[in-house]
């Protein structure tokens, strides 16, 4: 080699790939069954075989799995969790923030008190809104963060930020990172399952749980409860009447035989074996998925606990609490069944897009009308979920995370609604490794901005904490993409110690 060439620093043989994991993944050369990472039990081997990349888990994990409840459209901290007596006192008075406020729309009307009264709950005495009173039974399990700040009042960017850590598309969902780090506990089910609102997707749709540059196995798998095929293509589509149980089992045997014949002379290509195995796993998923999604054998007291009403399948046209309880409760119950069987991350969505009639939390017009049924619905399901996990001994290593896009303004919009408030909002967590009955970080007297504006909490702090509970140093769980070592927390994030048990 010409020593003057710019390549003279090259070693004799090509250098090892940037990321062995990435390289192995993409090239498929000599990889073996790990090509099925995320769905194969052997995924752990991959992480272990790459210790420089994943000294994981770094800490002793407090939790093994996560259930995230995501309120699409931006749920009001003021009317649910963050009690502001000052607003009750000043209700109806002209709002004065003491500074110029850039509202998303024009929601800077008079101060507006919480639409529902607050009462203390649990030994911790946490005041909760009447509309989420069902959560009172588990108030001592919950830890609140009332000083979260966003970066924007634009729904889409805010949803991306909370769902992926970045406010633009192209980044993996938080569940993808969990799956990437933890792998799967049950190869017959996906590691990351998403239960969208049954009426449709929230802002950004499936991009919120897309694997982006992470290996695609880590993408959230959508489960649409109530559809004939709750998981896309789980069973033959309408046009496949010619597929019968007999034809199917024989087809699998025939494919295996033909594929083994093909692979015999290509023994060095592990992808071929991996693909043969993927068909075996697919067949097993066809058995496992319907079983986990079938709640019909759950006892009545459990169905009642979750607010599931099996007596009716028709609901009024107007949004109503019974329907919301039923819909959200079903998802919570299925989430419990999923984590019981080893699914790592379940994301449950409440609310679809920001259109009309409102079926999400974007209550510019009327908090009572939309937040009422939605809050009663999610609170019943979430409370049941926490209690049910607790009674089964699962709560101690399952994290519950309640998230939304941003908060809503303490001033009214049009008398009954509230505008966007990206300046402060609430998250709460419960379960594995969380110190229940606590509040970390407060908002100011109005719930307009953090009380201490110099020490707000960001989504990256929440994500760092979540990864910490799962046993990861958020700065070390990285993946190189287009020349950058990407991580869920971008370049910031601190573990919120006060939340930890």
């Amino acid at each position: 080699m010409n020593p003057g060439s710019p390549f003279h620093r090259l070693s004799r043989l090509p250098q090892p790939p940037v990321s062995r994991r990435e390289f192995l993944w993409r090239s498929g050369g000599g990889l073996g069954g790990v090509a099925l990472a995320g769905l194969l039990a052997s995924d752990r081997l991959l992480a272990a075989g790459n210790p420089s990349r994943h000294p994981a888990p770094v800490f002793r994990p407090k939790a093994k799995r996560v259930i995230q409840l995501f309120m699409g459209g931006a749920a009001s901290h003021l009317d649910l969790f963050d009690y502001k007596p000052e607003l009750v006192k000043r209700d109806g008075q002209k709002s004065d923030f003491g500074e110029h406020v850039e509202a998303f729309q024009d929601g800077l009307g008079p101060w507006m008190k919480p639409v529902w009264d607050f009462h203390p709950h649990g030994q911790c005495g946490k005041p909760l809104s009447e509309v989420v009173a069902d959560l009172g039974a588990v108030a001592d399990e919950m830890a609140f963060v009332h000083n979260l700040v966003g970066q924007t009042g634009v729904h889409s960017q805010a949803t991306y930020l909370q769902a992926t850590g970045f406010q633009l598309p192209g980044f993996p969902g938080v569940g993808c990172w969990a799956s990437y780090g933890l792998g799967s506990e049950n190869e017959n089910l996906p590691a990351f399952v998403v239960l969208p609102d049954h009426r449709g997707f929230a802002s950004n749709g499936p991009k919120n749980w897309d694997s982006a540059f992470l290996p695609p196995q880590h993408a959230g798998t959508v489960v649409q409860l109530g559809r004939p095929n709750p998981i896309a293509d789980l069973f033959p589509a309408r046009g496949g009447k010619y597929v019968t149980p007999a034809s199917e089992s024989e087809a699998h045997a025939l494919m295996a035989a033909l594929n083994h014949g093909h692979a015999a002379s290509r023994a060095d290509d592990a992808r071929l074996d991996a693909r043969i195995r993927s068909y075996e796993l697919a067949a097993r998923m066809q058995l496992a998925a319907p079983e986990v999604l079938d709640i019909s054998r759950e006892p009545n007291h459990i169905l009642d606990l979750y607010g599931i009403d099996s007596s009716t399948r028709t609901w009024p046209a107007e949004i109503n609490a019974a329907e919301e309880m039923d819909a959200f409760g079903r998802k919570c119950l299925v989430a419990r069944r999923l984590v019981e069987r080893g699914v790592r991350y379940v994301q449950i969505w409440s609310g679809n897009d920001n259109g009309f009639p409102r079926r999400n939390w974007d209550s510019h017009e009327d908090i009572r009308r939309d937040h009422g049924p939605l809050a009663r619905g999610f609170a019943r399901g979430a409370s049941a979920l926490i209690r049910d996990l607790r009674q089964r001994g699962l709560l101690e290593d399952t994290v519950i995370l309640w998230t939304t896009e941003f908060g809503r303004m303490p001033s009214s919009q049009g008398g009954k609604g509230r505008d966007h408030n990206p300046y402060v909002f609430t998250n709460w967590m419960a379960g594995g490794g969380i110190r229940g009955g606590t509040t970390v970080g407060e908002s100011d007297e109005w719930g307009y901005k953090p009380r201490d504006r110099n020490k707000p909490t960001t989504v990256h702090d929440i994500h760092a904490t979540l990864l910490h509970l799962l046993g990861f140093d958020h700065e070390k769980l990285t993946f190189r993409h287009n020349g950058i070592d990407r991580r869920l927390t971008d370049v910031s994030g601190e573990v919120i110690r006060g939340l930890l048990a």
Partner: protein
Amino acid sequence: MKASPISNPVRAAWRRVVLGLAACLVPSTLGTAAEGPKDPLWSVAPLVRPAVPPSSRPNPIDAFVDARLAREGLQAAPEADRATLVRRLSFDLGGLPPTPEEVDAFVRDTDPLAYERLVDRLLASPRHGERWARHWLDVVHFGESHGYDKDKPRPNAWPYRDYVIRAFNEDRPWARFIQEQVAGDVLFPGTRDGIEGLGFIAAGPWDFIGHAEVPESKIDGQVARHLDRDDMVGNTVQSFDSLTVQCAQCHNHKFDPISQEDYYALQAVFAAVDRTDFKYDLDPAVAGRRAALAKRRSDARKRGAELAAAIAARAGEPLKEAEKSVAAAEKQAPGSEAAGYHTQIEPRADVAKWVQVDLGKPVALSRIVLHPCHDDFNGIGDGFGFPVRYKIEVSDDPGFAAGTTVVVDRTAADVPNPRVAAVEAACGGRTARHVRVTATRLVARQNDYIFALAELEALDASGANAARGGAVTALDSIEAGPRWQTKNLTDGWYPGVRGDGLDLAAAKRKRDGLLAAATRDDERAEQARIERELADVTAAEALLPAQRVAYVGAVHHGSGAFVGTGSKGGQPRLIRILDRGNVQKPGREVGPGALHALAFEPARFAIDPAAGEGARRAALARWLSDPRNPLTWRSAVNRVWQYHFGRGIVETPNDFGHMGMRPTHPELLDWLAVEFRDNGQSLKRLHRLMVTSAAYRRSTRGDAAAERMDSDNRLLWRQNRRKLEAEAVRDSILMVAGRLDLRMGGPSFQDFVVEKPEHSPHYEYHLHDPEDPASQRRSVYRFIVRSQPQPFLSVMDCADPSMLVGRRNESVSPLQALALLNNALVLSMSRHWAERLEALPGTVESRLDRAGLEALGRPLSAEERVSLSAYARRHGMPNACRVLFNLNEFAFVD
């Protein structure tokens, strides 16, 4: 300066984050970035043609590759057999499997140049451009919806996709290919490709709400526009020059020689443009005539405005008062948010839909007046939803079963769209309580059909509207309030309504009187001349051929929150260095430029300030396509190599920086780059060079000794077996089933059903019927939705249009298996294939022989024939076809 909404102390939490883009991290534990940032970057070193090592091989590629193999003592694999080669070439160059006849012809061809002729034939086929366009569309993250919230479709994005296909089929020289995409309008004025190529700038995602609903004056609006330019800069530099310039947004690049100022200089290049629907004429002569007419209009308007100003000045204070009264009266009109009544959406036009108004009591009617809607959906605008055929009936029976009079019957022939002009029907004093409009042929909306109406008025002899506020019922309604709901039909609001009250008319009379009194006769005559001139211009424009529309990066002439720079004559926005990428911390202003690390030109462009924004893009286009820009040529040949060999000479095609991989064959890379640059920049020549090499033609078979030394085959002792990309799988399934429609170009087919389009449309793939022949085209013509990717192709790793995909993921998963087993497309195509096979003469065995040739490019073995035919006899041919589609061999290419 307004106070910030998120005050600085709060923002301080984001001190190291700001835009969520800052993650350019030190690779703490990896130790794989071989060099620190101070080392020279290999990829920016000038290109020098290396000497070709001595070799007995005719193809210089082999001289380089073999020399390296010899040095390492590696034995190259033998050439693959001919059936393997024809399948490999067919997929690589055209993206489709060879037909059994093509395999047979090539296997039997004894011409020593048979291989070369096959290559030439495949390169000449239009399928080639379609195949390689898909690769390029991955790189530039082309999509046909915005992404983000309100993921609206881009109905006019497809011309860029067709441009890329055309450019590859016509073997466009690479420099020109670059120039057309960055500044084609400036560098090749009057050409179609000079416009349609600009779709490159607009290819990526766009935040509808951040632009269309938040003005640039707000911080959220500034953030959205900053992110928008960031996307354009990243797309340009990564696609053409393989550097991760976006890392320099918050600070100088940590590893590569890219300064923060370079980054904002690149933003300045795109400072005037937005993503926008651009109208243009294919014929330059027509474009010239249109421009001349536009000039006449603007001249006439200017004269009119001057005249009006003079008259207003003369009329003085009283006129100002009168104007205020008019404005106040206009404000009282109900808001335009209530657009009208809108039926459910239908997949076909010939569906009858009715809507009716209850007048409350029988009324003697003189006229029925229909007011059409205005909606910009799909660029329709005026006359949105007005039916193509319809009738109006009146009756006292709400069921219209008895005593019905047809007032107007337009059901026999299509009616021209009235735009927003009122449509009136005389009733001759007929008395009735109910008025019903029935559309008997709906109007096209996108690829579906609707009926919509803004207002129905039922006027009595006095001219009073008896329908106002009347109860509305309909066969169905989309009911998406406040914009679309039945009650809007009688709310008094429709496009062009001037308010309800008489106040407005009075106010206007007063104003007009004042104006008239202040106007001199000569001015009046001049005004009339101007009116005539404007009418003449409009009439002449109407005679010109319709303009085409393409979604491109260009100066946007908008209104509302999304103004663009059109109103300022395309003047670029000021670009300042943003501290930490924070729009609230603007620093020094930066002019247009490129990267200082490439020293062949000054890093800041010397542009005449009067030259217009296009000069900035033209300068960048020239800089990118300059023969002295080493990144451009290395990047291009490396991308082509990757698609032929499964891995680039540089394994990170989008990152030639310190964090990327080094080339495995640096001299070969440079030789190819120079060869490509200096010999017509012909991609087809480059393809020919690569695929005729012995390295390309090698077998994929393993070799224990070689695997021990180079298990990853980085030195190319064999060819890499490749897994078919999602599109190739889908296209092959359609082709083998005999259903592939090879029609080229035009609007994309949609393999989803759109529901609830008002906000963020719901793209429902599971409702699509794969039997729809419109969707049986090649996958490159698929309508690409960003927020809701096509599930079947996504699970098979197709590119995400929100990311710059230089190289796709390749995965194997149970979900993939389920998709190939159970997706409606596979099931229906298995059946079609089976029907075709069963129509052939012969036996089950002979039909399956044919199937094997079609799907796998080879005859079945005796054993395979026995087991497949036994299966087909027991479970039918469709099941056997489904098994073939699911085989490993179908999904991999040796």
